[in-house]
């Protein structure tokens, strides 16, 4: 699965392409699934309950991408519909980026609770995050350059 910088860039790329004014909401959504899931990083330092680690996979599913953003919408004093849609967009981008790229990462539960199957394009190993990072950086810089040239014209 990609690193956080890649997730931020993926969110920014889509926000730029769709001309979203509050890009920060898409970026927030694109990191939101990991705020809970990264609990597994504690297992680097001390033993963790396996069932707890297992349940964190749930927070990388599209169904949670519809529920969790709705729970944080009241934190923003802004058009609630836009806030919800932008955060959901970022969340779904994260779930898709993880699920479609990860090899043996236990992500890609795209149809839960209707199916317990994982769906992944199996494109990259976890240690090939740099390919996604560089690709995203190149795409983002290209979009910014094209946009600034179009503005000058």
């Amino acid at each position: 699965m990609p690193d956080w910088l890649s997730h931020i860039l993926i969110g920014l790329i889509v926000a730029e392409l769709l001309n979203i004014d509050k890009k920060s909401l898409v970026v927030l959504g694109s990191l939101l699934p990991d705020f809970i899931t990264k609990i597994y990083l504690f297992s680097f330092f001390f033993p963790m309950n396996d069932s707890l680690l297992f349940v964190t996979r749930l927070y990388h599913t599209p169904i949670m991408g519809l529920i969790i953003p709705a729970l944080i919408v009241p934190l923003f004093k802004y058009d609630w519909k836009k806030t919800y849609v932008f955060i959901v967009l970022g969340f779904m981008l994260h779930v898709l980026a993880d699920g479609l790229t990860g090899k043996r990462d236990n992500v890609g539960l795209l149809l839960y609770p209707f199916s317990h199957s994982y769906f992944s394009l199996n494109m990259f190993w976890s240690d090939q995050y740099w390919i996604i990072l560089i690709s995203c950086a190149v795409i983002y810089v290209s979009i910014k350059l094209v946009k600034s040239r179009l503005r000058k014209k």
Partner: protein
Amino acid sequence: MNKAIAIITYIILIFLLVLLSFDFYLSEKYYTPSGGMFMGDPEKYADMKLTFVGPVINISDSSFYMSVNHKPLKVYYPKLEQPKLGQVLVVGQSHINGTTTASEIHYFNYNYLKYYISFIAIFPFLYIFFRDWKIKRWRFVNA
């Protein structure tokens, strides 16, 4: 939106979140057991194709030890190389004595750098976020 409807919707969503969490927890049997589950009860999960991820502890000619959730796991696999700044992924056949025979190995070389990059990414995230928002009482308002 009417405040009462908003509050009821919020409570329903929290209930849904808790309900799905319990449902997912109880659906553990539909998924491949984790390395930690096997090591906790090797008899129950013997003769299965399982995946383990963790750092390598030590290597001998015919096997090596890796740490899975801070417990040592003996893996039969000849001539493993120490992964560089990362972990190793093992797909293997589990045995009743709590060991495994690897059929596939993948080196996550330099994988730890990913976590450093992710940590550094917190700063651009905070910059992007607080460029748009400022905190007023308990809510984020336009900056």
